[in-house]
């Protein structure tokens, strides 16, 4: 799954926080298809970590902007808004 966030700083903070709970998330540039401007950052993580992620970052006063499932079919990647 992918969640867009407000900045690379927020993304890095989420990565550091979740690493403390043994959850690996990846910081990446937001794909153009789901970005309003092409300059932005998001976090990528396994779907099974979604609830833990949302709960944990809320405890730290952080929030995600938009949430997407990533689906690949026919060689194309589709981002489905959750």
């Amino acid at each position: 799954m992918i969640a867009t966030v407000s900045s690379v700083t927020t993304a890095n903070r989420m990565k550091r926080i979740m690493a403390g709970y043994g959850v690996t998330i990846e910081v990446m540039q937001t794909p153009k298809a789901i970005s309003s401007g092409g300059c932005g950052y998001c976090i990528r993580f396994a779907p099974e970590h979604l609830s833990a992620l949302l709960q944990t970052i809320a405890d730290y006063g952080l929030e995600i902007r938009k949430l997407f499932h990533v689906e690949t079919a026919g060689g194309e990647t589709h981002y489905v808004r959750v």
Partner: protein
Amino acid sequence: MIYLDNGATSFPKPRSVASSVYDAILNLGANPGRGGHRMSRLASEKVFLCRENLAKLFHIKDPERIVFTSNATQGINMALKGLLRKGDGLVTTSMEHNAVLRPAHSLEKMGVEVAIAWAGPDGIVAPAYIEAAITPRTRLICVTHASNVCGAINDLAAIGEIAKRRGVLFMVDAAQSAGCVEIDVGKMGIDILAFPGHKSLLGPQGTGGLYIGKNVSLAPFIEGGTGTQSESLVQPENLPERFESGTVNTPGILGLNAGVEYILNRTTADIFAHEWALTKMLTDDLCTISGLTVLGTEDIDKKTGIVSVKFEKADCVEVAQALDKTYNIAARAGLHCAPLAHKTLGSFESGALRFGIGPFNTKNDVKTAVWALSRTLRA
């Protein structure tokens, strides 16, 4: 050289600071927050790590509210000029550096009410004097944590309590304390904290930071690219990017992080104790020399490692030059960019010679400096 000018900038730095800067330039040269490739991502992670360590040091809950600056002066200007408008009031003190006094003077010309609370001859500002200076227009109290002239430490917790009770924001200039005196923004009620990276945080010159509390709304000093929301012509609201337009000083910040890690490992309390012992020795030994007066408080527990003296007859600049040329000792003479502090301490006309003790100074440094000063004054 015996370096006793740590009030201006710290020297030497831990070797890890130099190696971190070197590594950043050699191996991590990408622009953090400006792209998705691995070197950029790694650089941004390392920059964030510095925010995280600074947050740990100052007991700040949200590292994102720490904005990197070039020095404390830049942070102070960002805060004062980003917050205060015509009709607002500012309460500050006579012990401030020109980093505060000059922007305050400019703001006064623009219609900001500026009140100065004067410290006593010990260099410490009575919290009651600060409270007495508050008017209905007062929006901000801005206080130096420790004097850059005499080392006197102000009671931030007491001043923070006054600010909270009177509904006024509280800003601290931690230029002489960050890294060598404990700072807890929560317990001290600090809303805005400006600090240099290159003094007691032991980072490279050209680094510093500004903590902006959640209850503080500042207009950005500069606007521009942040690597986010590029489609919008409006400066983003989120911190730290709102205040960090343009490429940050990645090598400097990574060097600063190494300095902060050194402090976290050694602890601020240990550094304070080390400098306290040398400060006591220096003060006691200076008091045995005739023809000079040690400025400010005699209570060593309320001082940092800054010790200044004024001379009855000698010219402080000539004494500093003699210490440098003859004994290879670095100390700083003059008014130290703090004219009102010198007026407070009675040294405005004469100026003073300042010694600034750091975490790597030794007893031998202090003994040699006092011996050299004594010989210089007798010459």
